[in-house]
């Protein structure tokens, strides 16, 4: 992922590249014209499908041609008797391939607005893979100055020192000039039951962090909720109007409702969700999902306030950002009915 564009790809003075850019801009403006003249409601599924499949056909043709050019260059270089083929020839081949990859990427970019997200993701991945193979090809064809050990030192030193891996610039820890205040929240607790009601409070964002073996009950609505480093906790919350951001939870049961729910670095945890958009996970595994099941006095009204009074069944439409294939991600599953907790009732008149 950290691969860099081959440097010659960004050279803008190359006339061939100029032309490509020019053509690209032409295409862009042509597309705008085409879209402007479209009637506003052309989003019938058949036309989308038509475009998606024609995009995929075009994309995979171009991709195959790039792959075979990479293979060809590699073959030519390995089969030619001497490896001393003119390096500038190699360079121009590589530059051509690189231009082709950039074009492929632009094709994807221009069409992404109608493509299903899975296609966008897998196509992005393919482009990135092509760049990777181009890079390794260029490393093969145009080797850097060979590292060689001086014969002088070989008898004295049995193990030559390996070239030191260069560390990336260490980013100095940010030095906050403003005393960054902590947001309201519950932090650093162990083995406690923590209860909080937002009813009538003006709290906008709330944080739960560094909790171990706690039971947390939050009632009423809030705009944003952050959960950070929770272990072995049960968390029950009323509806959140904006989003819930979760980072680093393990062995937890979380009953949550929100507009958006984003889960990072979760392990072995069960989520009971009501959510308006698709919940997402990243860098997580062993997480299971079930529908929201919380009850307290006044929850109906709170759900309405947050626009979450309807069950959307989105709790099961989980997107795993680390998983690029169409088959089910191994990192999450639907919690089997017989293992689900039945409705959880909590009290709403907690002190606030």
């Amino acid at each position: 992922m950290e691969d860099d564009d081959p440097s010659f790809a960004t050279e803008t003075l190359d006339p061939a590249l100029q032309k490509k850019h020019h053509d690209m801009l032409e295409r862009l403006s042509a597309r705008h014209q085409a879209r402007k003249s479209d009637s506003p409601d052309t989003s019938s599924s058949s036309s989308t499908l038509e475009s998606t499949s024609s995009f995929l056909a075009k994309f995979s043709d171009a991709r195959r041609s790039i792959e075979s050019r990479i293979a060809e260059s590699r073959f030519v270089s390995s089969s030619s008797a001497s490896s001393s083929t003119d390096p500038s020839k190699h360079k121009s081949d590589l530059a051509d391939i690189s231009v082709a990859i950039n074009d492929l990427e632009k094709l994807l970019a221009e069409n992404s607005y109608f493509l299903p997200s899975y296609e966008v993701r897998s196509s992005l991945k393919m482009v990135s893979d092509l760049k990777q193979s181009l890079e390794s090809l260029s490393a093969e064809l145009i080797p850097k100055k060979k590292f060689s050990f001086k014969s002088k030192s070989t008898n004295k030193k049995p193990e030559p020192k390996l070239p030191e891996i260069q560390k990336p610039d260490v980013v100095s820890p940010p030095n906050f000039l403003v005393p960054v205040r902590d947001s309201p929240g519950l932090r650093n607790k162990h083995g406690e039951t923590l209860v909080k009601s937002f009813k009538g409070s003006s709290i906008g964002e709330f944080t739960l962090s560094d909790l171990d073996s706690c039971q947390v009950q939050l009632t009423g609505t809030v705009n944003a909720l952050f959960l950070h480093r929770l272990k072995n906790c049960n968390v029950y919350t009323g509806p959140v109007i904006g989003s819930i951001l979760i980072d680093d939870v393990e062995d937890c049961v979380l009953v949550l409702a929100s507009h958006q729910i984003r889960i990072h670095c979760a392990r072995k945890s069960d989520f009971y969700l009501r959510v308006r958009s698709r919940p997402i996970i990243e860098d997580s595994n062993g997480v299971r999902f079930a529908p929201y099941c919380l009850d307290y006095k006044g929850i109906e009204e709170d759900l309405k306030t947050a626009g979450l009074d309807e069950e959307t069944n989105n709790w099961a439409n989980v997107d795993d950002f680390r998983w690029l294939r169409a088959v089910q991600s191994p990192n999450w599953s639907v919690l089997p009915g017989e293992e689900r907790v039945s409705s959880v009732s909590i009290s709403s008149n907690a002190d606030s």
Partner: protein
Amino acid sequence: MGLLSIIRKIKKKEKEMRILMVGLDNSGKTTIVLKINGEDTSVISPTLGFNIKTIVYQKYTLNIWDVGGQKTIRSYWRNYFEQTDGLVWVVDSSDLRRLDDCKMELDNLLKEERLAGSSLLILANKQDIQGALTPDEIGKVLNLESMDKSRHWKIVGCSAYTGEGLLEGFDWLVQDIASRIYMLD
């Protein structure tokens, strides 16, 4: 004719501007784009890739590229740097814990040569949330004053929910780009 003059010529005809929106995940990029375009913002999923919106703004056509900010997607950002006229960096002003991530990612972005000529608008979003940092505070944390002198930049507080601040921000951005690209009009 050099590449830049070709681009300018075509852009001039179309009065097009290319705007790249980036920022950490959850900062509100997609919500902002839909809000300025007058669309429904009540059901938005985290962006798995990117969206392109073409918006006519004053007498210009903005091509807005909204790229996902989840960790997995950030490595793709650089695929969209080319020919960017305006860069919009969106900050969740209520996410105090990740401000250092936010600063680090912005610093990396600003090192990028291909973005060197673009105007930078920083949107301190979610100002409607009680307890959010003010644009001034965000500016200090991000250490904006120490930015390269040649960069045109501005920070504006906004809320994608109420719409407050969005026009102010985009007005500045569009004017700033226009004054560089369409100077000769």
